[in-house]
C-alpha cells in the first residue's frame, strides 16, 4: 500500500498510548493496531476526523504517500 500511516510517530510526539487514543476516539485497540501497522484497507472520514481531533493534528500528519507498487490483494478464485 503506497499510503503509510504515521500514527506511531504522532502518538510518540503527543506522548499518548494506543489504549488512551482508543478510549478517546471510540475505536477498539485491535482496529487501531490494524491502522498503526498499515494493514488497514481504508479509513472512514469519521475515524480520521476523530483521530485528528484527539491528536490535534491534520490528516496529512497521519498519512503519507510513498510511491511504490500497489499491494492490492488478489481476487479470490
Amino acid at each position, binding site marked *: 500500500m503506497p499510503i503509510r500511516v504515521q500514527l506511531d510517530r504522532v502518538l510518540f510526539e503527543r506522548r499518548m498510548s494506543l489504549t488512551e487514543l482508543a478510549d478517546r476516539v471510540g*475505536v477498539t485497540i485491535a*482496529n*487501531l493496531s*490494524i*491502522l498503526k501497522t498499515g*494493514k*488497514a*484497507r*481504508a*479509513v*472512514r472520514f469519521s*475515524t480520521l476526523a476523530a483521530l485528528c481531533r484527539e491528536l490535534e493534528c491534520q490528516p496529512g500528519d497521519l498519512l503519507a504517500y510513498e510511491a511504490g507498487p500497489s499491494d492490492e*490483494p488478489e*481476487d*479470490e*478464485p
Partner: protein
Amino acid sequence: MRRAGRAAGAALTAEGRFMRALGPGSVSSFLKIILDVVYGALWIGVVAVSLLVLAALLFSFNPSLLDDVSLSSAQLASRWPAMTGGLFAAALYMAGVLLIVGRLRRIFMTLTAGDPFHPDNVGRLRLIGAILAALELGRYAFWGIGAWLLTGVDKARPTFSLTAWFSVLVVFVLAEVFREGARLRREAELTI
C-alpha cells in the same frame, strides 16, 4: 378513525413480521425447513436406491434367486442389466442433488450466522452450478447410452432443457456476485 389506525398498525406489524430476514417466522427459516426436509428425504432416497442397485446386481448374477416371482428367470435375466443401469443412473442423479442441497444448507448456515458473503460460498455456488450442468449432461448421456444399448428407447428422446441451462447460468452469475460480495466484505473488515 382510531380503529382504522390500529388496523393499519396491525398490518404493518404483520408485514414486518413476515418481512423479517432472519429468525423465527422469517422467509429464511421457512426455506431452512424445506432444505432440511429435502436433505433428509434425499438421504433416504439415496440409501433406498443404493440398496435396490445392490439387489439388482445380486439378482443379475444369479436370477434363480427370484424363482418365486411370477416372471421367468430368462425374462429377469434380460431385464436386470437395464434395470441396474437405470437404478445406477438414478442413484448418481440423487447423489448429485444431495450434493447440491448439502451445499445450499452450508450456504444457509453462513446466512443464519450473519455472514452470507463468506468466501467459501463462492466455491459452493460454483460447485452447485457445475453439478447442475453435469446432471443435465448426464441426462443426455443416459438417454444416448440407453438408445444405443436398448431397443425401443430411441422413441423417447431427451428434450433440450433451456431452463436447466438457464439455471446453470444463473448460479454461475450468482457465484460471481458472491465473489464480489466476499471482496467487499474483506475490505469492510479492514476499514477502520
